[in-house]
């Protein structure tokens, strides 16, 4: 089934070796510095797996228990390392099982290369066994995708895939390779991709725009910074810190911006958005200049757009031109990688202090502390609260752990209360809100940061969506720490039912299995806490464990997460109770 074309013969250089398409895939991954990939074998990808067997000393393939787990693990890996995560699956159901992870990576700008096997090219379109049009299916949720039907396309296309995934605003790329292209041979040589003529990863930086931005910042009386993941993706954390310290501007973060600035930094004023902190939400509608850095004004951040920061001049630092004016009109858009634009901005801004303005944040924090935080952290009666568990983890981690969270109430609590000293410490599904993300993502995060403690904080609902990945943890002996905050409900949905649907708890109560027994079945160390008095010791034991550890905490069943910006309300209409 050899496919050789004239153009390929012409391109071949003396430095090549003849290999199969399948082997070429592995050689490309090695050229890109890939050491770990996550996947699941099957018919149409078997030639590549056969090569993985031969190259097992050079490339570590992690067999997840479901292809969705492979994408989330690759995402976790990418989020803590900044490298491209790689997931692999077979055709048909293998490929469609990747879809949720790909969509998650697309909306959260996570660099991912997904490789899928496809039926032989002579069978394409014939509804062959395990044939799905994964290129068609994944088109709206990928930064780029491509189907390879000829072996000689493999090196150039995979080089492009990695370049596209990691450059500019990162994102997921899917490469579908027909089985005959895996079997056919080619003369292999590899050249990393350094540019594509139709693709401009980073827009040009406009100095006049930067000067306008600096002027607005310098003359502002109540400037306010909101930063997002762009700061982390651009590796601009130090610049952000310098900017904040030089200008004295209070800075708040979006959920994906968390850990870009240490949480205990004096000018870090907390989280914006639906369950963010009181002060940054209230004062978004008080500031005179809103400086948005590497964030995209998601609806969970802005609440009602008609009432969002209308009084403020908006400066938007952003790498993706499509984000400018998408949700919030920017008075001064500053395009470019924030690593470059913030460096230039730093030269243009004047040193300042905004003590009176900063004091307004502190005053509102005091209100939130008295009304919410104090009770969340120091409850004495009733069942354990979610925040208390996070607080105990902080005590042990001293802010140096990677915290992976799933989606729901526990996620909001984990974001509100976790302490971080270093960047790339918080991994969660932000834009897509994918329940089931955390357990597999924690596996990838631990493999990407083996010297850091990785704690997955998961609700009892999301946990059961990817619970099978306990098998991956067991097989790979990956020492992740798993904390289940079990309230026996799909808590966030239940909270909404309570507040907005007259407590009609439709299908949110969960009759759960014995989670401890299940974890024991995978030979993972376990513990269960039901009483407050046991909590500190149990968390400590878990954090000190050298092996994977499963801790179930039975928490208050009907706890609500506050503050809260109800749907349709302005951020300044945030509720404290």
């Amino acid at each position, binding site marked *: 089934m050899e496919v050789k074309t004239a153009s390929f013969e012409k391109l071949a250089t003396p430095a090549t070796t003849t290999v199969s398409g399948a082997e070429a895939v592995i050689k490309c991954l090695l050229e890109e510095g890939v050491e770990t990939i996550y996947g699941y074998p099957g018919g149409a990808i078997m030639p590549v797996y056969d090569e993985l067997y031969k190259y097992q000393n050079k490339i570590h393939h992690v067999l997840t228990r479901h292809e969705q787990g492979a994408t989330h693990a690759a995402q976790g890996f990418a989020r803590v390392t900044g490298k491209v995560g790689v997931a692999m699956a077979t055709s048909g159901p293998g490929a469609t099982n990747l879809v949720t992870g790909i969509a998650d990576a697309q909306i959260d700008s996570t660099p991912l290369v997904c490789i899928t096997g496809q039926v032989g090219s002579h069978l394409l379109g014939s509804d062959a066994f395990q044939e799905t049009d994964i290129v068609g299916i994944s088109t709206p949720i990928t930064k780029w995708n491509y189907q390879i039907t000829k072996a000689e396309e493999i090196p150039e296309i995979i080089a492009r895939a990695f370049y596209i995934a990691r450059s500019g605003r990162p994102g997921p790329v899917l490469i579908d390779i027909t089985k005959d292209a895996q079997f056919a041979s080619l003369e292999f040589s590899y050249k990393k991709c350094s540019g594509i*003529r139709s693709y401009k990863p980073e827009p040009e930086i406009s100095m006049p725009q930067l000067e306008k931005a600096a002027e607005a910042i310098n003359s502002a009386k109540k400037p306010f910074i909101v930063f997002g993941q762009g700061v982390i993706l651009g590796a601009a954390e130090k610049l952000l810190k310098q900017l904040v310290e030089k200008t004295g501007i209070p800075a708040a973060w979006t959920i994906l911006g968390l850990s870009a600035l240490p949480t205990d930094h004096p000018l870090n004023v907390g989280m914006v958005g639906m369950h963010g902190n009181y002060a940054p939400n209230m004062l978004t509608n008080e500031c005179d200049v809103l400086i948005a850095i590497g964030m995209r004004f998601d609806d969970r951040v802005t609440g009602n757009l008609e009432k969002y920061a209308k009084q403020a001049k908006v400066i938007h630092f952003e790498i993706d031109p499509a984000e400018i004016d*998408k949700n919030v009109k920017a008075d001064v858009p500053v395009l470019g990688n924030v690593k470059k634009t913030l460096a230039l901005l730093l030269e243009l801004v004047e040193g300042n202090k905004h003590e009176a303005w900063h004091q307004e944040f502190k005053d509102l924090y005091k209100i939130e502390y008295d009304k919410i935080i104090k009770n969340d952290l120091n409850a004495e009666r009733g069942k354990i609260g979610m925040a208390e568990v996070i607080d105990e983890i902080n005590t042990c981690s001293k802010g140096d752990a990677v915290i992976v969270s799933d989606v729901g109430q526990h996620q909001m609590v984990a974001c509100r209360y976790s302490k971080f000293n270093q960047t790339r410490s918080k991994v969660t599904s932000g834009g897509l809100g994918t329940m089931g993300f955390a357990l597999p993502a924690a596996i990838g995060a631990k493999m990407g940061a083996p010297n850091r403690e990785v704690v997955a904080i998961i609700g009892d609902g999301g946990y059961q969506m990817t619970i099978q990945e306990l098998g991956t943890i067991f097989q790979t002996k990956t020492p992740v720490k798993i904390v289940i905050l079990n309230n026996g409900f799909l808590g966030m949905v239940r909270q909404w039912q309570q507040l907005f649907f007259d407590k009609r708890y439709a299908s949110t109560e969960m009759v759960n299995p014995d989670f401890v027994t299940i974890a024991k079945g995978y030979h993972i160390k376990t513990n269960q806490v039901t009483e407050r008095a046991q909590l500190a010791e149990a968390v400590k034991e878990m954090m000190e464990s050298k092996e994977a550890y499963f801790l179930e905490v039975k928490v208050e069943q009907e706890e609500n997460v506050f503050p809260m910006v109800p749907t349709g309300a302005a951020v300044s209409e945030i509720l404290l109770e």
Partner: protein
Amino acid sequence: MEKKNYTVSIYTENNVGLLSRIAAIFLKRHINIESVTVSKSEVEGVMRFIIVVQVTEEQVQKVVKQIEKQIEVIKAFYHTDEEMIYQETALYKVNSEEFVEDMSIQDFIKETNARIVTVTQKFFVIEKTGKRSETDSLYEKLKPYGLMQFVRSGTIAVTKNEMPISNILKQFDTTN
């Protein structure tokens, strides 16, 4: 904001799958595509899409940015009708009996500068190229005679002002 006709011109690499990638951007925002044509452009190896949509200017601005973000899209523009020279081609298949019996059809053809493409014993085919209103008006005139078939192409259009695409491509060539 008022909805208007906008012509979106997209210069792209010649790649399978790009049409569905671009169509998906409109679909995601629930925007109905009025017409679409794809052809080669003035630049060798570069394709040009002409997509007509009826939206607000804000919508078309956002869509064009999303289109331009696609890896294989070189450049995308949007224009109002006033900024474009645009044409559509329509074909009308009419029963020959009607044609022979009623001379007024021949008058329409002359008046509207339409052209007879084919004549057979059973039918003849008229072609009319022009603005939507012109092909529509001929359609209305021929309809009473029993149109056997009618089909109209998507809009093709060129801008009145210069398109900077050739310069953009030159820049790519020198930077890479």
